[in-house]
């Protein structure tokens, strides 16, 4: 615990140091962050190894309890990616922020460190009031980070949307915690563990509050609307952290609250499962339709949060139907996916940031052929793409595999309803996997392969940016190659379940590990075989097969829009794209063009009308705003009088 606190202290020192500026300053802060993270990771690893929670209590001169922080295995699983990705993003920001003016850099460093510390506090704190404070600090610091480039109007719009969305979520959490605190008579999480679970409907209400409140942070559909706005607007290392770990605090909160609520009824599992399916499928569909690479990645966060929710839903269903083993697989898959998503999404956002840094654009249609100029960024981006598509032998496959097994077990052993839910989840996961693979072939292919589409100059990012990406890519590969080891180190301490379930999971994962080894071994053998067979063979260079056309240009390449056009056509009722097309006419057609834009379904269909209605309602009260100071004083006076009289008559 001391190591953790010292680590957090170093992070804070690094952040404050940022405010003093200086040319080498970001490097100093990053160094402090790395040391702090190492300490924090050590603390988390210790807890995961021993399985025993460590706690820290201190008096607090405020009402409602004391400072109570504890790291149990669940916290540790969330802490590990926060520290890892936080430190790497801090290093990355040295190169990424290079060249901006000093004050902006200082502000970014300070806020970033504040964000990292508040995330750590959120997952460790054991007091509801303190949790809300840390939660709010996390929201505000990330909001200010999103606004770093606030000169652009779309950034201001994104920041505003984020602020509103996150506070709507916080409002639900506030109600939830106040209610639970009143019932329990305390705001300490330890006292909530033995909450009177006599009333099932009350527990249900709490679950719904938690689902909406934490879901808004995590990005469940339809409360995900802030994600595709805020992630592209934020600087890339911030997007990496926000998408990689900050939204996971929502998952953490949900899991933590569910542990307080006692044995779950089946409908909780069904609710989470539906939320997961809808988020997963719509998230990846809208990702397909995007051309802005960071916006696309943001939609993929919605998709991956959906996958995590599916795993959690499976775990709840397993508990509800008494299928402990399925529940264990679901929970393990969901938690491992939390870690994995932090790794590959952090990697992908950093890669997108490198491209943005090098070329100045996020529009994939303007890019192309970058792998030749940016080999390190491109290669790591490819590894991240394959991981997020859930391909073996990489880490994304391992967690999706566990979730699949959970649903197969539910469908095999459960009653018909449970089986139908399992079947729906399996079909959904399969569809999501296929669509994600399609989306990432598109984005990797269009950005990094082929030829340049516009004369944008690009060069490889500095080492401070490529090194963090290399670390993340290596982590993706390691977890993928050694799933049994990673799961037993990272996840098993949290499960605290019957040993034979863990044994069965270990045995399955050992087989996956073996298969990965066979696959990789065979791949290496084929590479050597290929190299051997090519000895002394003529290998020449020519142009790509052009079908006999003699003047091909790079603009004839398949674009991202054309790549996804069949998808948009097929899923048109769900995506409802705005299309602008000028078809070619006549024998000598003039320039023809096709564009498609996908506006968010929830923004357009739910929140737009809702907030429009609120606005018209609010405008009816505009007459209150007079602009005369005396009138306002009158309001104050009247309010006071009303309150006094209310007090008097009570």
């Amino acid at each position: 615990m001391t190591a953790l606190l010292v680590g957090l202290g170093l992070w804070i020192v690094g952040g404050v140091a940022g405010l003093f500026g200086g040319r080498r300053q970001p490097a100093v802060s990053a160094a402090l962050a790395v040391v702090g993270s190492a300490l924090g990771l050590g603390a988390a690893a210790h807890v995961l190894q021993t399985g025993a929670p460590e706690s820290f209590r201190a008096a607090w001169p405020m009402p409602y309890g004391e400072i109570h922080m504890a790291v149990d295995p669940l916290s540790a699983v969330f802490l590990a990616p926060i520290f890892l990705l936080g430190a790497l993003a801090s290093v990355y920001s040295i190169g990424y922020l290079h060249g901006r003016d000093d004050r902006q850099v200082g502000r970014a460093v300070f806020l970033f460190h504040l964000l990292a510390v508040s995330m750590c506090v959120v997952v460790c704190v054991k007091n509801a009031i303190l949790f809300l404070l840390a939660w709010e600090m996390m929201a505000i610091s990330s909001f200010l980070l999103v606004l770093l480039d606030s000169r652009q109007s779309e950034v201001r719009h994104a920041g505003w949307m984020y602020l509103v969305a996150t506070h709507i979520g916080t409002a639900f959490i506030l109600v939830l915690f106040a209610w639970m605190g009143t019932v329990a008579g305390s705001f300490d999480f330890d006292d909530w563990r033995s909450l009177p679970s006599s009333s099932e409907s009350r527990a249900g209400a709490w679950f719904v509050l938690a689902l909406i409140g934490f879901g808004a942070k995590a990005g469940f559909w339809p409360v995900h609307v802030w994600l595709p706005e805020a992630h592209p607007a934020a600087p890339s290392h911030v997007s990496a952290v926000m998408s990689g770990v900050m939204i996971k605090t929502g998952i953490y909160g949900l899991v933590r609250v569910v542990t307080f609520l006692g044995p779950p009824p089946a409908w909780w599992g069904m609710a989470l499962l539906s939320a997961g399916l809808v988020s997963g499928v719509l998230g990846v569909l809208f990702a397909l339709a995007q051309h802005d690479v960071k916006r696309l990645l943001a939609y993929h966060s919605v998709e991956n949060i959906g996958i995590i929710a599916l795993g959690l839903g499976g775990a709840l269903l397993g508990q509800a139907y008494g299928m402990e083993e399925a529940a264990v697989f679901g929970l393990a898959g969901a938690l491992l996916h939390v870690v994995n998503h932090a790794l590959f999404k952090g990697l992908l956002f950093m890669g997108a940031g490198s491209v943005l840094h090098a070329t100045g654009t996020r529009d994939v249609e303007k890019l192309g052929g970058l792998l030749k100029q940016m080999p390190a960024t491109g290669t790591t981006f490819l590894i991240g793409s394959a991981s997020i598509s859930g391909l073996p032998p990489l880490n994304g496959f391992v967690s999706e595999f566990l979730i699949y097994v959970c649903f197969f077990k539910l469908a095999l052993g459960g009653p018909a309803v449970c089986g139908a839910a399992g079947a729906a989840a399996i079909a959904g996961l399969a569809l999501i996997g296929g669509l994600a693979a399609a989306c990432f072939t598109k984005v990797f292919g269009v950005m990094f392969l082929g030829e340049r589409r516009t004369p944008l100059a690009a060069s490889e990012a500095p080492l401070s940016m490529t090194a963090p990406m290399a670390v993340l890519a290596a982590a993706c590969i390691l977890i993928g190659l050694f799933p049994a080891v990673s799961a037993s180190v990272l996840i098993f301490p949290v499960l605290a379940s019957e040993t034979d379930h863990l044994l069965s999971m270990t045995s399955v994962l050992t087989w996956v590990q073996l298969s990965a080894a066979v696959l990789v071994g065979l791949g290496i053998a084929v590479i050597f075989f290929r190299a051997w067979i090519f000895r002394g063979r003529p290998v020449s260079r020519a142009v790509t097969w052009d079908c006999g056309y003699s003047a091909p240009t790079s603009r004839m390449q398949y674009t991202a829009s054309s790549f996804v056009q069949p998808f948009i056509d097929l899923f048109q009722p769900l995506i409802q794209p705005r299309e602008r097309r000028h078809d070619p006419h006549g024998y000598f057609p003039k320039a023809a063009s096709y564009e498609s834009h996908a506006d968010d379904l929830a923004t357009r269909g739910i929140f737009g009308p809702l907030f429009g209605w609120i606005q018209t309602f609010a405008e009816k009260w505009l007459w209150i705003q007079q602009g005369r100071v005396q009138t306002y004083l009158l309001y104050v006076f009247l309010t006071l009088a009303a309150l006094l009289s209310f007090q008097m008559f009570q």
Partner: protein
Amino acid sequence: MTAWVTGTLSGVLVLVVITNFYILNTGRYVNAVRAVALQGCLLSLLPLPQALAGSPEAVFLAAGTMIVKGVLMPLILVRVIHSTDEFRVVHPFLGPVASVLLGFAILAVAFRAGAAIPGAVHPHDALMGAVGTATVLCGMLIMVNRRKAVGQVIGFLILENGVLVLSLRISRGLPFVIELAILFDVLLAAMIFGGFIQSVHAQFSHTDVSRMRKLKG
């Protein structure tokens, strides 16, 4: 009931559902009518257990179903299609992929509902209830989702087929006379529909029912 009879019955019921999906998917009315004919023939196999038990009414009913649903009504419909020149499903409200998926959702719900119908005796009773419910709902879906009058007649026939399956499930077959009466009612309805559609087509040169909106005041 012997195993092979049960097996045949469940096979027939599964095929009925598949014809539903085919009709939801197809873009040509003639193909849809062929599938309706096939469905009628399949339904005529359903009174098989009673027929094997030696009930002459059941044999008669099977033959009647086969002739009316498998031959006569399809013939009428094909004639109507040819006389109105409306061969293709035009601009349905839901595309084929969406309507097949919706049909699948209906099927899943129907299995839940079909299991709830009381009085199941035979192992395939639950299946029969589910398939009947699914077919009725599927017929409604087709009626809602087609613009041309022919499409709606096809939907109606499927709906009626579903009712037949359900009636066999619930009461082991309605009394023979009523069953036959219904059969001829439906035949009559199909003939009237056919004549109606043809005269509407002759008058307006289309039978797009969504354009009936103009008629309201």
